[in-house]
């Protein structure tokens, strides 16, 4: 038990349910904390999208991944990044726009990335991160180390044309690419059946020649199984598509109260709680509530600390503003102020 509590290694496909539970709990708790930070107006960014309710997608697919695999996420990608082993402190401070964050405070929640973990980047453009995995998969195939590249996106992105162009190329070239649609039923205030007549999402991918499945996200072990099939298929040269059915527990943004959803739908949706479901399964399997509470507390403590870390971190220095537009060593763009001063100081 203890080593599970202390470990923050990404759970693998043969980790037990307890490890998956912990991975999901860490996401749930992180999102709770970042939501509070945001509501207190202490996070940078006017937009914050929580993945609460989608933890099994992040953890289940992550379990089918291995070192060297790369991935892109969308605007609701905290969970996936955590499942892949992200440092929650540096995540929290990046979301807070602090210099100690993953992207030195320049990216924030929607543009977080970490090359060392294969995270090629979150994206604020719906569908924007999808084609990059085709390129990364192309390279993975060249390098021949058996790695895959996975794009994570929401059901709303199913209506972006670039997804079909990307899946077609991946199929044409037999690339180790996987397209994971986290179907939380909603895209802002639009329910999936208000965005398309074709709600059996995997059928579209199948029509382009990919291995395609839809899995219910309630039980993380089901997601692990389906993801393992799809991801292993991709490693073997047939790109795949996986839709994970779940529910967006909160609003689109943390402040959105989802007035467009009925009480009934909210209640039914929240009933499909993958974290609670795993917890109950564990208790059925004889894990004591005390142990689970201990684990939850340890996770809470870990995540509370991220807030302190973020608060204690500095804002980025203004001198960093012109850095990173181009590579180190390249001249930085001339600041407008410098131009003005030179122009006016000419005499």
């Amino acid at each position: 038990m203890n080593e599970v509590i202390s470990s923050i290694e990404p759970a693998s496909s043969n980790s037990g349910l307890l490890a998956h539970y912990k991975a999901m709990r860490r996401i749930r708790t992180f999102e709770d904390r970042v939501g509070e930070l945001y509501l207190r107006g202490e996070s940078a960014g006017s937009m914050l999208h929580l993945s609460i309710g989608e933890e099994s997608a992040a953890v289940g697919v992550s379990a089918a991944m291995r070192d060297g695999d790369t991935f892109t996420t969308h605007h609701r990608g905290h969970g996936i990044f955590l499942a892949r082993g992200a440092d929650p402190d540096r995540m929290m401070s990046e979301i807070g726009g602090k210099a100690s964050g993953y992207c030195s405070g320049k990216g924030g929640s929607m543009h977080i990335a970490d090359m060392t973990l294969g995270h090629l980047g979150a994206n604020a453009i719906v569908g924007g991160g999808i084609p990059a995995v085709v390129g990364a998969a192309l390279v993975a195939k060249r390098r021949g180390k058996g790695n895959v590249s996975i794009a994570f996106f929401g059901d709303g992105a199913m209506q972006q044309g670039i997804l079909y162009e990307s899946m077609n190329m991946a199929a044409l070239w037999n690339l180790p690419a996987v397209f994971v649609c986290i179907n939380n039923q909603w895209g802002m205030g639009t329910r999936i059946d208000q965005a398309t007549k074709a709600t059996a999402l995997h059928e579209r991918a199948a029509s382009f020649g990919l291995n395609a499945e839809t899995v219910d996200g309630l039980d993380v072990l089901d997601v692990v199984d389906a993801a393992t099939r799809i991801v292993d298929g991709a490693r073997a040269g047939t790109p795949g598509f996986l839709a994970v059915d779940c529910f967006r527990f909160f609003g689109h943004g943390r402040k959105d109260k989802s007035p467009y959803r009925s009480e009934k739908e909210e209640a039914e949706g929240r009933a499909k709680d993958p974290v609670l479901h795993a917890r109950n399964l564990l208790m059925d399997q004889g894990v004591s509530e005390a142990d689970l509470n201990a684990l939850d507390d340890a996770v809470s403590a870990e995540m509370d600390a991220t807030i302190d870390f973020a608060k204690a971190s500095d804002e980025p220095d203004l001198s960093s503003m012109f850095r990173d537009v181009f590579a180190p060593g390249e001249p930085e763009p001339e600041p407008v102020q410098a131009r003005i001063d030179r122009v006016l100081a000419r005499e």
Partner: protein
Amino acid sequence: MPKLAYRDALKQALNDAMREDPDIFLIGEEVGRYGGAYGVTKGLIDEFGVERVLDTPISEPAIVGTAVGAAMAGMRPVAELMYVDFLGMTMDQLCNQAAKIRYMFGGQIGVPMVLRTQGGTGRSAGAQHSQSLEAYVMHTPGLRLAMPATVYDAYHLLRQALKQPDPVVFIEHKSLYAMSEEVDLTVPPPDWGKAAIRRQGSDLVIVSYSRQVHYALQAAEELAKQGIEVTVIDTRTLNPLDFETIRKEVEKTGKAMVVSEAAMTCGVAAELAARITEECFDFLEEPVVRVAGEDIPISVSVALEKHSVPTPERIVDTARKMLA
């Protein structure tokens, strides 16, 4: 006089125009049930129904393309692009189709559509949700471009845009939505394409548009305290561009500054500065100075974002140096 918010003036314009013209309809992401990401279209779906307020899938290229086809077929679509930052996905339909159809087809037909969108900084929304991309539009022949700075213009420029025979890109500023002003919408508007002189001075002319007009006016207040009187011109539209008003004012003072939130290089400020210089050369005592956005992406960091675009302080400081 009643106070009205920029956001509500836009809604009012859509509401009034839709009642007048049954061929006008709205099409875009979240414009209906959700009421628009910034609440501009809230309630219109109840007023006009799903037939005239179409919530779409997240398919920007097809949204703009659908508007093009509907306009050619005789209706007057108002397509909404939630953020101007998404323009990059739609520029083929906007610039190769909408903008060129009348010309390519020898004048047989026009594309009377309005593409409503919003841009600019101020919400710490990051590099892909904070841009000012009006230069892409202004550079494209065949497109009209309006960028309202005031509540009054939010209403009247949109009403006028909805009477244009050609495609109009209408760019709102995300930081102005909540701005309220006492305004009498019954005052008849200036002609479409006319600039407005927001303040009259004798020392320097500042030419701007959209949110930066307010920064220029704030700067003008401060400068007045220091004995410097500036004229502030709000171009209101960038295509058509009312250059005559700019010329007259610049010829009076011999000094001009252009202020734009867009990246400086090859931006709107470059066009305005080049145009003022070539047309008013003999009157200029100083080079036209560009106070524009930095040539960098916008950070999510509040601190970095703020300094990525012109500030009232920089406008004041620059004006003082120009008059030193």
